[in-house]
């Protein structure tokens, strides 16, 4: 790890001010950033730790019935307290291990947008709204490719608002070593249709599987999925844990399993 300056703001206002510095880098739970820094593969002149900003932590329900989660809320807290959206709580409960869940945050995960992270699938499938100090971004506009998001430089996630589906489930097939999703699918059934978000599979990061959404919106059953062809393997990640064809196949399998498990 290279030397850096550590800033620990206690209010959102202080955090936003600190991040105006060109050298500054926001630090959530550090579960991706710190190992990368320790390996000297990343460096920042100034780290702005968000863990002391109380106003962007915690879970509540807004007037529209949405589950609203502060950006600096840990996975463990979501797993324990997001009882109004069991599929999301279950997703959080299965990220990493207890140490990761007690440090890692929803805002950190969504800001990083790792193509194999869990939260992007939950946010995209639930049509969540990503809230920053100055604006609200719809999930459909937020995810812009592997490690790419709509966030501007220094812009942090203060809150994520999740509409609660009628039924939902997250099915994850883990990569044997990292236990990140090799392919994972979040299925969310709303009154006006079904959304299916896939993580781990595509080189463009999380994506919605339109064919499955169409089929499931008219018939919410595993059989509706079995009639589909697997998505195109062309854009899929291919690595030592599975080639594109395998990942495309798993998208279909995990989608059907998520539909079966949805409640």
């Amino acid at each position, binding site marked *: 790890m290279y030397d850096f300056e550590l800033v620990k703001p206690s209010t959102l206002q202080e955090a936003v001010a600190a991040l105006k510095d060109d050298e500054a880098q926001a630090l959530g739970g550090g579960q991706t950033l710190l190992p990368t820094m320790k390996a*000297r593969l990343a460096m920042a002149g100034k780290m702005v730790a968000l863990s002391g900003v109380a106003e962007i932590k915690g879970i509540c329900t807004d007037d529209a019935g949405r589950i609203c989660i502060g950006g600096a809320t840990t996975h463990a807290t979501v797993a324990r307290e997001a009882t109004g959206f069991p599929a999301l709580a279950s997703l959080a409960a299965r990220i990493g291990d207890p140490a990761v869940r007690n440090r890692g945050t929803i805002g950190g995960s969504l800001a990083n947008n790792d193509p194999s992270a869990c939260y992007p699938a939950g946010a995209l499938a639930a049509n969540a709204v990503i809230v920053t100090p100055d604006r609200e971004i719809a999930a459909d506009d937020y995810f812009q490719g592997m490690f790419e998001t709509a966030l501007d430089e220094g812009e942090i996630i203060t809150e994520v608002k999740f509409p609660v589906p009628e039924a939902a489930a997250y099915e994850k097939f883990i990569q044997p070593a990292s236990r*990140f999703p*090799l392919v994972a699918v979040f299925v969310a059934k709303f009154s006006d249709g079904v959304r299916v978000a896939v993580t781990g599979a595509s080189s463009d990061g999380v994506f919605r599987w339109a064919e499955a959404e169409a089929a499931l919106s008219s018939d919410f059953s595993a059989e509706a999925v079995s009639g589909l062809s697997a998505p195109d393997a062309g854009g899929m990640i291919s*690595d*030592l*844990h599975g080639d594109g064809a*395998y990942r495309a196949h798993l998208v279909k399998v995990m989608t059907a399993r998520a539909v079966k498990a949805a409640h």
Partner: protein
Amino acid sequence: MNDLTPAPQDALGLSRSVRRAEDPRLLTGGGAYVDDTAPAGALFGYVLRSPVAHARVTVAADDARGMPGVQAVLTGADLEAADIENHLPTAVAKNRDGSKAAAPRRPLLAVERVRFVGEAVAFVVADSLAEARDAAEAIEVDFDELPVKLDVAVGGATIHPDAPDNVVYDYGKGDEAATEAALAAAHRVVELTVDDNRIICASLEPRGVWAEMEGERLHVCFNGQGVWGPMGTLATTLRMDKAAIRVTNPDVGGGFGMKAMSYPEMVLVAHATRMLGRPVRWMADRSEAMLSDNAGRDLICTAKLGFDAENRLVAYRMDNVANLGAYNSGYAQHIQSELFSKVMPGVYDVQACYMTSTGVFTNTTQVDAYRGAGRPEAIYVLERAMDYAARELGVDPFDLRRRNFIAPDSFPYESAMGETYDVGDFPRVLDRAMAEADVASFAARRAESAAAGKLRGLGLCYYIESILGDPSESAEIEFTEDGRVTLYVGTQSNGQGHETVYRQFLATDLGIAPEMIDVVQGDSDRIAKGGGTGGSRSVTTQGTANKAAAAKVIEKFAPFVAGLLEVEAVDFGEGAFRAEGSNRVMTVLEAAEAARTAGETELLKTRETTTLPGRSYPNGAHICEVEIDRETGQLAVVKYTVVDDFGNLMNPMLAEGQVHGGVAQGIGQAVSEHVVYDETGQLLTASFMDYGMPRAVQMPMIAFHSEPVPSTANVLGMKGCGEAGTVGAMAAVGNAALDALWDLGLRRVDMPFTPSRVWALLQLAEGATDAA
């Protein structure tokens, strides 16, 4: 006959499942590992490693030498100029034609050329680790890249000029002509080729070392598997007298053979300490460990089994090609050759046997011993081949084994490889295993799995193991002033629980309470000689020496105690000296105290050395059941049964623990551990993000049962148990995987059975069905 039965009230003696004395200390942070024990103020060493697999290099370190906190920067050129050997030696094997195997130089720091990713290029010593790393980044290394050679085969880009076609050695053993003739005359010949995949050891504690000057003497402390071998390496490379070097091993967090060999860092730290006159420490991080620790396995084996019309095995030929990596590690040339040969014919009565092994260099990290060292590899190919043969011959795999077992009444049995198996009762062990594993109900379990969309398979491996390592060992028993006992041993615990078991020996033989006994290991200044840990040798060799030393203590003390008790003679029994016709008794500790008071100091220290007359041969049956998810290719080991003949068990609970750990490592290799290099020689599985260590959640409950036939090759009647679990596990899983997939038309399945690889097999099967 051995006499091991402890007194009935003796719950802490031999054959009892005494709890590990080490655990409270090791599990509550009380362990003193190498990085915990470095002297205060020690300088930090950091190794700059090659990022490319094969290149000509030039190294410029002048800028780094001027960096803050830097005390020394060493390059290959600096070592060449210093008064040391820039080379780690290896035990050189002999080729079939009698010539010596290739032994090119293995430099401590690369000179002009690097040959694998992770090879040490420079060594920086600085006041802090951060400063050492900063300085390493300032070292300029020019890489002029060369073609890489990665496949486990003869040929390819030359790595060492003195190893044409990258052949390291060409080993052969057995009667080739007789074997070929028997194969030619056989009723049926079944041939099978299997990959034995490369693994990374990944011990919980990575390698580390520190050194300091003790006056004019050099003290080197590292986490190894013994201190005397490395002392020789240090003396040779540093051109020092052994007497001027002290080597110690502190607590060690797992070795598995990987830590038995010498590495460049130990010598570099020692050299820098001597040069600077200040203590120096070095500890590998996980990525360094994965790049630079000796790897294991990595060979391709082809078996040819010849059967007569009654399905009796009449000939066995095995040829393997073994990857040694870029350099010869210390014992690498003997693993897939001589050590493999020890159990090459397994438990079968077949006298026409021949094996070859061809070692090849590749641009990868060096490969050497890994838990079992040659014996798991030998049993893997043989048991996969026997299972496959049963299918090809259309007979039950259990029956084929039984038909070919060495009969219980033919021991001692000399195998075709010249090993004398002392005892064994393979049919009895197999019967027990079939009953314990409930093989009879397998069809019902398979049907249940099928109803859940899963393929279920059952696999058997009947393994035999040969205990290796130095058969000699010494024990010294010292009665100390504080009224306690110190036992000096020549073995080296890497976490197995030696301390617990050795105390059991003295509790049984001398009636001394375990908590009064201190076990000392791993210090060349306090113990003159020892064999360390390896080859499942420790408890057999050290236990035998412990018993001999204990017997000598009684013999030495008896006249003295008789004098004290004013009797003609005393006997020792039930934990104390007793005299016939007298109700006076005296414990050993009381006697020692009296001897000290009486000035009989020669009684207070007793050292005995013993040599085992022969090797023991643990053997047993592993029966594994796997389930494969047809949709995803996920394979899970769902049922696992082990019946072992370990002879007499010194501590049944610890023996079972060894089996659990061994099986876990075998299942790890079979299911998830997968080393992958890309086409340029970059290690893609260089962290736990990509290297699939087995996890507790993947492990089945492992049922363990003992079916002992006491060994006649040692007075304890025991057989070593440290490696046996690994030896049996790989083929049991592999055979179960093939059993699950056989009906789909698949005929060759290789480890590791990762989801994507199994799914690819399932696709192959579907393709085959479509084509038909």
